[in-house]
């Protein structure tokens, strides 16, 4: 449904970077863009929506050509009919929840969609509040509802869940899946969270320095990393203590101080302050719910 082939020069903290992407997305697919910050995920959404101009490229959605730099075709963002949820929500502070949604109506559009979305997103109680009075999760729902008023076919979500706590995050994921199915959307999500990606997406596109390094189902992309039955952590040696025949190496991993037993030959090369890799086979890890 979406064919996307773009080149765009970007100024990043590490100097100039060329965003060079070529991918296709099927109708009704839920795709996640995954990658380190600065790898070009947000820019990809902006290029697709027309907020950022490409140096060179081609975008085709269904049978309509949105961008073709060779033939100087460029559809303005107003005409692309895309639902876009911004990282900072971009709710209009002067309008109430209902007014934010009504503003999005097209000329002559049936107003019943407003009631439908208010009820679907469970916003009826909040409809007369101004954005400043809402919590992060509530703003998120309003932003999602507003983006869907014009019944677009494509939904773009720019890390919408990064600013809310875990419980709210799970709830919002359900809202997003719900609208994705109900309105038969083609959705592209930017996310860092592998659990979230497993839960929501049909396909993952991994970006690295402006290029696609991997794409496929979440299983195919992440399994080599996650399913090896091995934990790996990087840490720093704080102390090495001798105790009878063995040595105890005290390592700082993140904020945790961990004691690791080592034999004499293992500690030969180790000194205090060394960076070390701690790896363990995890055939039988203990899983405990913490929230």
């Amino acid at each position, binding site marked *: 449904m979406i064919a996307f082939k773009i080149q765009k020069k970007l100024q990043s903290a590490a100097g100039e970077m060329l965003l060079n992407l070529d991918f296709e997305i099927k109708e009704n697919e839920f795709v996640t863009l995954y990658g380190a910050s600065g790898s070009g995920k947000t820019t990809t959404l902006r290029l697709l929506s027309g907020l950022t101009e490409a140096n060179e490229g081609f975008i085709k959605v269904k049978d309509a050509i949105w961008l073709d730099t060779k033939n100087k075709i460029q559809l303005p963002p*107003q005409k*692309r009919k895309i639902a*876009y949820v*911004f990282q900072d929500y*971009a709710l209009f502070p002067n309008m109430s929840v209902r007014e934010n949604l009504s503003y999005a109506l097209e000329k002559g559009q049936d107003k019943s969609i407003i009631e439908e979305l208010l009820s679907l997103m469970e916003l009826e109680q909040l409809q007369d509040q101004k954005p400043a009075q809402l919590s992060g999760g509530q703003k998120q729902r309003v932003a999602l509802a507003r983006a869907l008023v014009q019944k677009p076919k494509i939904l773009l979500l720019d890390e919408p869940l990064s600013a809310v706590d875990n419980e709210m995050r799970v709830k919002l994921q359900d809202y997003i899946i719900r609208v994705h199915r109900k309105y038969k959307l083609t959705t592209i999500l930017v996310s860092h969270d592998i659990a979230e990606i497993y839960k929501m997406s049909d396909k993952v596109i991994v970006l690295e320095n402006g290029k696609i390094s991997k794409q496929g189902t979440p299983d195919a992309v992440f399994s080599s990393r996650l399913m090896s039955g091995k934990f790996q952590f990087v840490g720093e040696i704080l102390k090495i203590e001798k105790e009878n025949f063995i040595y105890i190496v005290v390592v700082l991993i993140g904020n945790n101080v961990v004691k690791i037993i080592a034999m004499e030959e293992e500690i030969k090369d180790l000194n205090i302050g060394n960076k070390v890799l701690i790896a363990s086979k995890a055939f039988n890890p203990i899983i405990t719910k913490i929230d």
Partner: protein
Amino acid sequence: MIDFEPIYLTLKLAFCTTIILLVLSLPLAYWLAYSKWKAKIFIEAVVSLPLVLPPSVLGFYLLLAFSPENAFGKFLDQYFDIRLVFTFPGLVIASVLYSLPFMVQPIQNGFKLLSKSLIEASILLGKSKTETLIKVLIPNIRKAILTGIVLTFAHTIGEFGVVLMVGGSIPGETKVVSIAIYDEVQAMNYHNANIYAGILFAFAFIVLLCVYSINHRFSKTTPLQ
């Protein structure tokens, strides 16, 4: 008894200047805030010139420009039968130029403080830039606009140098309160000068009191801005 004509004239001048500047400054400040054109710094510098120039310098150049002896003044005189030197319309134009930064700068800052994604969100909802400006941007910089209006109004009331150069002191036409005070002092009428000065003093104080109380209230009700 003092003459109330200068007070009426001062208010009329401040009112006209503020209205004209508001209409001019909204698009100008919008352009200055969002244009990517590199040479816009020249326009920004020109807009801010009245902040640093002595009013007499600005007044002097305007006097030269408006004079029927010179090209621009002659052109207006011959083709439109307009005279700007020592007339009320000339005074309004001079005030508009002189108070320009007091209206443009607060509004421009207001635009700059708004998140860019507000504009982008509106555009992605299919709205034109004009509709976005009127329905989204302007309502969210009310405080900045109000500050601009009050500052411009108050600044125009307090102006002296430019008015003196361009308008002189023609009763009923260009003799505003600040000029009237000067005239009264020259004529040793300290009593009248005192009344005019007292009126301006009280007015300036009340205006500033209003600005601060409004700012205070706005910052309480809209924590986002």
